[in-house]
């Protein structure tokens, strides 16, 4: 067992946890935050996406002990008011079964932040040279799809997810 200090959705948490515990299992089984989902437990689907210190990560491949002291935000963290992305997902029906949705929304929010600060994706290299140095001017469909490609949706709500993200970006 190991002592962990994590700030989860703004609340400091002090936990004694199994050293083997992933952040995903810690959130779900110890803290009762079941909004983050387990889809594969091996980094293949993105359903477990949360943010750690502001950047999106896979909680199933995060050893909780290795992020001792970090700030974690889950899908529950946003508070009672729905934000632009959540409203857009509802409006555009950006889900069907809803199981991958927590990960999709967390990634979608991150996509908007990453784009705003000029981060690249593999899709950025298909544009002009300036795009690589300065970052893409526009969050195109191709950019969104590539940046979201780590979130698998078996129901295939992809088109509506992208519509929701474009709506939220505008």
């Amino acid at each position, binding site marked *: 067992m*190991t002592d962990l200090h994590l700030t989860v959705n703004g609340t400091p948490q002090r936990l004694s946890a*199994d*050293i*083997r515990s*992933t952040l995903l299992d810690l959130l779900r089984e110890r803290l009762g935050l079941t909004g983050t989902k387990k889809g594969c*437990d*091996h*980094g293949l689907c*993105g359903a477990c*996406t949360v943010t750690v210190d502001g*950047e*999106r*990560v*896979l909680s199933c*491949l*995060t*050893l909780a*002990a*290795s992020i*001792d002291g970090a700030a974690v935000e889950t899908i529950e963290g946003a508070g009672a008011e729905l934000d632009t992305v959540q409203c857009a997902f509802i409006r555009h029906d950006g889900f069907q079964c809803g199981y991958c949705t927590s990960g999709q929304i967390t*990634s979608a929010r*991150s996509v908007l932040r*990453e784009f705003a600060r*000029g*981060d*690249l*994706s*593999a899709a*950025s*290299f298909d544009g002009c040279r300036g795009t*690589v*140095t300065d970052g893409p001017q526009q969050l195109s469909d191709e950019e969104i*799809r*590539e*940046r979201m*490609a*780590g979130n*698998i949706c078996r129901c295939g709500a992809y088109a509506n997810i992208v519509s929701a993200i474009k709506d939220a970006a505008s």
Partner: protein
Amino acid sequence: MKTFAFEHADTVDGAVRSAAAGARYYAGGTNLLDLMKLGVETPGALVDIGRLDLGAITPTEDGGVLIGAGATNSAAANDPLIRGHYPMLSQAILSGATTQIRNMATVGGNLLQRTRCPYFMDPSFAHCNKRDPGSGCAALQGFNREHALFGASAACVAVHPSDMAVALAALDARVHVHGPDGVRAVPIEEFFALPGESPERDNTLRAAELITGIALPPSTLARNSWYLKVRDRHSYAFALVSVAAGLDVIDGVIVAAALALGGVAATPWRVAAAEESLIGAPVTDAAFRTAAELITAGAAPLAQNGFKVDLARNSVVRALRRAVE
């Protein structure tokens, strides 16, 4: 998974001491933790190196760049120095995995990720010399579609899955390591180990050596470079074949060239003759095709991966075309 001892290292020397005592380095964990869940890796102790402040990316005196081994893949790919001077490296890193994984994984860890051979990754397969020396190689007579064309042996036909490493090979990177016996710089072409009779070794690191940085010499190839990754779906899959291509072109003539293949060997695959054939050549498809044939000379396909030979050749031509666009 088996339980393990765990500590955070505060200094590089402290980390090396722990490793010398048997602990495994733990950074992003995106590969090691996965392999621990699968029972492929069973370390008794981990030493977490996340607090060692090894993430800086800085220009070096010779006009190159030193990437701290602790920099995340995302940080490296998006760094202005990398985007500006080594765009092929940025592109290679961004071709790998997904944003979430790139935010966690370090560049040091990227070099150390282990093969994706399914027989290696599942301990219920008895025959895997890399995981269990002497037990045989199930891929030789089994599923080998994704396996090596070059540098393999009767003991192991696995490939190294890193995209970043292929670009580093084309850019003549050097891997800085810090071990119990001091520091050294390992040229990237000497970093990975071909399987030979000891496929359990992926690389030439000595016991307890910690990667502290990756140094890139100044490059004239930035203007005309490209990383092409060919895989079974449009994103989020390992390479069947990849190509890092860089050219320096003056007045329509190639004056410098670097060409490396990924997904085809236990190390990025460079062939001097292929690059030499481009020097002095005009920028033409014919020149590209000659280089493609030379870099795939000596390919030894297995039962299921013969298509990779044509794929590699076509991909080299494609990558070189895109590099000069």
